[in-house]
């Protein structure tokens, strides 16, 4: 656990594709299966990016609107992070392309980070730490994924879960007595709990990579599609998330009652409610965006903030606990305060 002081979150924007898809219309499961799925996961609708709209495009739109709204001087932005598992290319880093598209200075550090569901919390820690050490005034954290592009539509264990979104968060060096507290963990033993098997250097892309295999009823995919071992991921989340939250709260002298909102990665309702109950947190302190935005991977925390807490973020001083967990396996918790930040209405592209 560690604390980064003198850095604050000052602005937030999220963009999603206009195209809505209802899980009631999912064609590869029975009506009963769909009803149980929606009731259990809480995911009714999803947003799906059309061909050609990437995670970097979604983040770019969010960033442009946020910087314009905040009248931000772009030359003051010294760090740009792009956290995604769906970059524009394997080479070059997408963050560097975004630096140019956004008109940021060449001296601005630009990095891609490959993380999914824990990515927003990790991103906050990396950008805060870099701002502290580089002397830059502002940092731009871009976090998002178009997971719909890496799941098989005919895989009922993944396709009805994932949804697309991109976010932009402006971090500022602050004179105020602000501090962000972090607890970050990983466990590489579970590297294959969520995996795309082919296409990297460990298992290169070959013509066989795109041969569709029927795994079981309702699950057909090839080796370039995302595979998720639902039971392993579920048990990992049940095991690790609540203790991580319980560990970080006393580290920064807080109790659950001192936190206004607990914003968890939007995995699925069954899992998230199990975590909430373990922590004995009141339901009204745990917002969900699952119903209309599904599991947006790395963007699920900012998507929940913007769609569920915009009014409070804009008008109030808040104590927030953010918790991300998933692919890696990787998990992290952050506790921070926000004070009437610029939080834009949801952007639809």
């Amino acid at each position: 656990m560690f604390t980064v002081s003198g850095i604050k979150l000052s602005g937030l924007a999220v963009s999603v594709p206009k195209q809505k898809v209802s899980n009631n219309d999912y064609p590869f499961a029975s009506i009963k299966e769909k009803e149980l799925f929606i009731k259990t996961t809480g995911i009714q609708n999803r947003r799906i990016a059309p061909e050609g709209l990437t995670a970097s495009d979604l983040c770019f739109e969010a960033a442009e609107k946020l910087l314009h709204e905040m009248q931000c001087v772009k030359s003051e932005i010294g760090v740009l992070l792009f956290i995604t598992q769906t970059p524009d290319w394997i080479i070059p880093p997408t963050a560097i392309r975004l630096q140019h598209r956004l008109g940021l200075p060449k001296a601005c550090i630009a990095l891609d980070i490959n993380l999914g569901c824990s990515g927003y919390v990790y991103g906050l820690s990396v950008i805060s730490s870099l701002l502290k050490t580089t002397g830059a005034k502002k940092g731009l954290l871009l976090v998002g994924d178009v997971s719909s592009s890496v799941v098989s539509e005919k895989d009922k264990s993944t396709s009805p879960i994932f949804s697309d979104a991109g976010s932009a968060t402006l971090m500022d060096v602050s004179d105020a007595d602000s501090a962000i507290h972090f607890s970050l963990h990983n466990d590489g033993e579970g590297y294959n709990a969520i995996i795309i098997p082919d296409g990297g250097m460990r298992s290169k892309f070959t013509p066989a990579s795109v041969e569709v295999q029927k795994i079981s009823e309702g699950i057909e995919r090839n080796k370039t599609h995302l595979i998720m071992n639902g039971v392993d991921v579920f048990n990992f989340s049940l095991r690790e998330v609540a203790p991580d939250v319980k560990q970080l709260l006393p580290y920064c002298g807080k109790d659950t009652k001192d936190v206004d909102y607990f914003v968890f990665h939007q995995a699925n309702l069954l899992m998230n409610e199990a975590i909430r109950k373990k922590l004995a947190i009141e339901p009204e302190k745990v917002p969900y965006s699952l119903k209309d935005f599904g599991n947006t991977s790395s963007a699920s925390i900012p998507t929940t903030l913007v769609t569920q807490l915009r009014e409070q973020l804009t008008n109030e001083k808040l104590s927030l606990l953010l918790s991300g967990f998933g692919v890696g396996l990787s998990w992290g918790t952050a506790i921070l305060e926000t004070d009437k930040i610029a939080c834009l209405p949801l952007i639809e592209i």
Partner: protein
Amino acid sequence: MILADFIKMFEAELADIIPGTILPETAYKQLDAWNSMQALILIAMVDAEYGVTLTAENLHDCITVSDLFSVVQNKKTVLNS
């Protein structure tokens, strides 16, 4: 831990099951209502009620509801020892 209570909870979590139809010897994976989503629901129920984790291996190895109960019971005993 009582087997009858476990069965009652198991029935409550399964969709479209008439109470009283699940027996200790029921091969739960053969039930029409059983699927991967029900597996997660069962794991969440066991975690909440008994404080132990059912793994994918446990679910694979167990045939009957009674087998599941034994696994949960054994894990709880280890946890409390």
